């Protein structure tokens, strides 16, 4: 197989005496959906935080398209095309939906001080294009009617979709979703599944997913990584994971 887009090996994160992540390895190939599952407190979110530069991993290598990115600050990793959502919704609540999408395009806008001050043609053009791009994605996530409403007033499911659209504003290669289906009803979960498929198939985005909804995970993933108490437990296709005795034991043991 070709070189993986994201290649993580021996990732370890220690908080004082607590070993939250211990030697996790992860390979994500272009245009795959890879899921990370495991009981609460297993260290999944911590892995995300390490990959996106919010934590500096204690040990381990993170290669993005062959380039080492561990230790880079978060905003620079995002600029390399790795963008994430959070376990809790983190929209800019007082800004409207469309403004949330405009802010996320900050780096792609004309931010020249004088250009903005005098509304040069280049400035107007860049603002117009940003608006169009944002409107396009509002359509993709079915939120056009809510464009001018403050993000905080949207329904929970809508906020979740807006968050994904906002990530897409940064033109990512890898989209990392932290429990995107948590709190969604079955219909919304179906919509989410369709959206993830759309992102991968039409927009060429690679998705790394943390999720507890097994039906969703099993139906959409190309590859699944199981983590238990910070350690990698299993790694394989959905069929392999479903049949893996260790996984069954860990999950049943939990229950």
């Amino acid at each position: 197989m070709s070189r993986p887009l994201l290649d993580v090996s021996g990732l370890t994160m220690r908080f004082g005496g607590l070993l939250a992540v211990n030697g996790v390895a992860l390979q994500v190939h272009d245009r795959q959906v890879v899921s990370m599952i495991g009981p609460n407190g297993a260290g999944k979110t911590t892995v995300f935080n390490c990959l996106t530069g919010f934590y500096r991993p204690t040990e381990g290598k993170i290669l993005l398209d062959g380039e080492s990115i561990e230790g880079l600050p978060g905003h620079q990793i995002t600029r390399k095309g790795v963008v994430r959502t959070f376990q809790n919704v983190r929209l800019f609540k007082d800004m409207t939906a469309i403004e949330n999408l405009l802010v996320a395009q900050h780096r792609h806008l004309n931010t020249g001080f004088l250009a903005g001050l005098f509304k040069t043609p280049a400035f107007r053009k860049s603002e117009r294009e940003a608006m169009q791009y944002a409107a396009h994605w509002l359509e993709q996530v079915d939120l056009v009617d809510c464009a001018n409403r403050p993000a905080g007033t949207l329904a929970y499911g809508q906020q979740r979709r807006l968050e994904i659209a906002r990530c897409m504003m940064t033109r990512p290669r890898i989209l990392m979703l932290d429990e995107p289906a948590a709190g969604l009803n079955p219909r919304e979960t179906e919509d989410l599944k369709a959206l993830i498929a759309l992102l991968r198939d039409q927009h060429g985005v690679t998705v790394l997913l943390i999720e507890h909804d097994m039906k969703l995970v099993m139906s959409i993933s190309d590859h699944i990584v199981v983590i238990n108490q910070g350690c990698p437990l299993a790694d394989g296709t959905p069929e392999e994971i479903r049949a893996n005795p260790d996984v069954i034991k860990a999950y049943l043991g939990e229950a």
Partner: protein
Amino acid sequence: MTHRIRPAFFSALLVIALSVPVFGLKLTTEGIALIVEGATASTYWIIAACAVGMFFWTLFHERLAAGWAASPNLPRILAGAGSFLTLPSTQRWIICTLIVVALVWPFFGSRGAVDIATLILIYVMLGLGLNIVVGLAGLLDLGYVGFYAVGAYTYALLSEYFGFGFWSALPIAGAMAALFGFLLGFPVLRLRGDYLAIVTLGFGEIIRILLRNMTDITGGPNGISGIEKPTLFGLSFDRRAEEGMQTFHQFFGLEYESIHKVIFLYLIAVLLVLLTLFVINRLLRMPIGRAWEALREDEIACRALGMNPTIIKLSAFTLGATFAGFAGSFFAARQGLVSPESFTFIESAIILAIVVLGGMGSQLGVILAATVMILLPELMREFSEYRMLMFGALMVVMMIWRPQGLLPMQRPHLELKP
């Protein structure tokens, strides 16, 4: 009712405990001895009346409030008027009207009034500048006066040592203040909230103490005097011009009148305020303005979206400092004299009070608050001893009555048009 008696009694006692030492006792020196004098009987009667008033107010104000709620018309009209006044479109109209009035009235006003108006405009400019940092970017800066001092001394020094005029020194003063803002901002903007406030507070004091101690250059506590006044395209407003220069009244064949100079300074201040208003209005609609708001709401989300928080905060800090620099150099030109004592912490506090009083982020609010904050002490000169007490009372009243400020900001929202 009975459960209110204890707090009511306590409030009345508090009134007495606070006002007797402040109003009732006077310290006077006689020779080298310090003696405590009681106040007149009427003062004590007033204090007693206040205490009784407080007692009944605390006892009954819940009922009064209920009465208010039962007849809802008045408060609702007031609330409606408030939100109407804070609409961006209304604010634009009010500001346009204000501009016209501001340009016309000084030709009919008295010299003293124009002079105070000029002072108010300096504070409007400072308030608007600090508003960028505190109101828009959400960074608590307690050393803003430091940048004001940098601007003032830049012009004073350039004028003293290199003979610069006001107009050529103005951009340099702005740039100098911006540079200081940038250099200070770089290390400290990693700090959050209270820590940032403390470091900036220290910075303001450092600047003042430096200016006072670099006696060779800045003249120490005496400051620098004889700073040149602004000219109108080379026309001076003095009675007699220097070598090779012309005066305004000679050029236009007018009688010399000292008020011309005052009005001219006032008009420059109006011009600078208009420039500031224009820039801020544009900033609000620029990507950086949106980024400031986003950063104020959620820094972590901003970082996850590829924005560099340090750079975005730094831009607010630098821009805010620039306006303080402009205001400072104008202050130096108006005063003709700068000394470190013009840049004490209390100035920072007043500017911050203007921002908070006006409503964070709101421009019309800042203008209104600057007027109140500067005009009140001027109008109530005879009460100048109680100036700080009145500021305190004003703040308390505001926090109860309108914690969001006089005219809180309603940001212009970008709309998606179908």
